[in-house]
């Protein structure tokens, strides 16, 4: 906003400059326009919302939908059970997330190594990503969760949660590896060249110059993968464990009321939003301003 005079010609700069009559008119016009577009935007929003609310609320089936999906009392009743299920999602996600970052980063580095000696590593990393990115997660979960215990090998764990988690780690590592690789390859060659000319070794260049910038750049898509992981962690419920969605399903089966699902959804969203804000804040503190560059 430009500085606005309290009254026409009411202020003067120290050097005696006053806005001309034309400029004052301009300012007034802009002010009027701002007010007008604000008013139109407000009215349009209210009208549209009213139309939607009226449209949905006046359908004959709405009371039934409200009772089936938005029954506050039923939701409150189901909350403890669903929250207990969510605790499993959170634990699985936290443990898997750490492992996925380690594996994903390792794969990405393997794939970006230069030199003929590293060819087998590059091939392995490429093949791994190709295969596990393509395989449906559910199949991987079944293969590990039911397939491995069926081998009846001594000494291997039998718990569904462990094998389900392993399937998540295998699949998501391939997604995250690609994200990291994109980040590493987006760092301009001049950065490497500069680091090498300062006498840093290959490893030091990667560790102190390339990776910090690369990771910072891919934080938002990384977070995408973790939010997605949080929801997919529920897929291990097919092995018999009870997560938030499964808990909601069990509640729904009692009286065919779907509100517990909505409760589970709200809990997931409540987890996701703070996580997003937190990563944005961390990225900004590290000097990441998105693709638009910093404040000019």
């Amino acid at each position: 906003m430009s500085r606005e005079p309290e009254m026409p010609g009411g202020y003067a700069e120290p050097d005696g400059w006053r806005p001309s009559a034309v400029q004052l008119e301009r300012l007034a016009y802009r002010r009027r326009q701002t007010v007008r577009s604000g008013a139109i935007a407000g009215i349009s929003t209210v009208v549209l919302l009213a139309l939607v609310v009226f449209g949905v609320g006046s359908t004959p089936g709405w009371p039934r939908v409200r009772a089936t999906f938005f029954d506050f009392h039923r939701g409150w009743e189901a909350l403890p059970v669903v929250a207990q299920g969510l605790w499993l999602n959170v634990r699985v996600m936290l443990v898997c997330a750490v492992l996925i970052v380690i594996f994903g980063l390792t794969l990405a580095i393997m794939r970006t190594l230069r030199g003929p000696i590293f060819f087998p590593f590059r091939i392995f990393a490429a093949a791994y990503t190709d295969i596990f990115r393509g395989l449906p997660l559910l199949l991987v979960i079944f293969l590990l969760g039911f397939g491995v215990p069926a081998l009846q090998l001594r000494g291997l764990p039998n718990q569904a949660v462990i094998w389900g988690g392993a399937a998540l780690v295998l699949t998501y590592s391939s997604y995250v590896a690609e994200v990291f690789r994109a980040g590493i390859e987006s760092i301009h060659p001049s950065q490497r060249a500069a680091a090498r000319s300062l006498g840093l070794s290959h490893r030091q260049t990667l560790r102190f110059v390339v990776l910090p910038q690369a990771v910072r750049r891919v934080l938002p898509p990384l977070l995408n993968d973790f939010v997605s992981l949080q929801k997919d962690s529920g897929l291990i419920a097919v092995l018999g464990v009870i997560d938030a969605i499964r808990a909601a399903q069990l509640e729904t089966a009692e009286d065919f009321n779907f509100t517990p699902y909505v409760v589970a959804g709200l809990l997931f969203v409540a987890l996701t939003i703070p996580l997003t804000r937190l990563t944005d804040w961390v990225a900004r503190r590290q000097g990441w301003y998105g693709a638009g560059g910093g404040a000019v």
Partner: protein
Amino acid sequence: MTARSALVVVAALAVVGLAACAPEEDSAGTAPQPSSADACSKDKLALKTAGTFSAGTDKPAYEPWFSGNDPANGKGYESAVTYAVAKKLGFEPAEVKWQTVQFNAAFAPGPKKFDLDVNQVSISADRAKAVDFSTGYYDVRQTVITTVGSKIAAVTSVAGLADAKLGAQVGTTSYTSLRDVIKPKQQPAVFDSNDLAVQALKNKQIDGIVVDLPTGFYMTAAQLDDGKIVGQLPATDKPEQFGFVFEKGSKLTPCVSQAVDALRADGTLAALQKQWLTSEGAPELS
């Protein structure tokens, strides 16, 4: 197009759209009681498609309720009962049309495509708030099955099951019995289908499965090499029953209930149970 005319067009479209997708009001009243038998004559029935008796069930359709995953062959208890009900209402077997209805889809709000759904659904007062039920066509007993040599193979009382890791299918009364009657110390394992539960039992990931008695017999006979029925859970004071599912307020409910009651009275249900469902040889758990 200026912004203003665009706004007008959008508003007009919104109004038209709302009007266009405004559903017709259906009178969801309580179903009228049929005054006499002829209120349930074939031509007076409120069917989705005139002259067709549309029955729904889930896919896969499990033994011993259906046979060969084909509900239309009249084999298996629920298929046989459905055809018997249709016959009572005056339909030829060829007029009975089956459609696949996922377990959960049968209870979602809104109009249904089927006249009735038959899917081993237990009748309960809570569920009756969302759908209509016919009278029960089968009295359910819950059983625990396991494999020979498991830690619960020799258990004779419900208390002896408390330490075991047990499984059940999601959304079933088997799960509620497991939770409320056995009260296990470990969290029960819950599976999307009984097949997955059997898989976990074979892998020794769980010690036993809670299912209804006929399914338990089928599992131990056909799906498990070394299956064993541990026993039936104690009967509650209110017997659990499977019923046909209708959309809330269906005018068909009383007529089907009448047919089911008639089949029960003339011994047809008992005969069909004898034909399709075993019930001998499952001990009672104390």
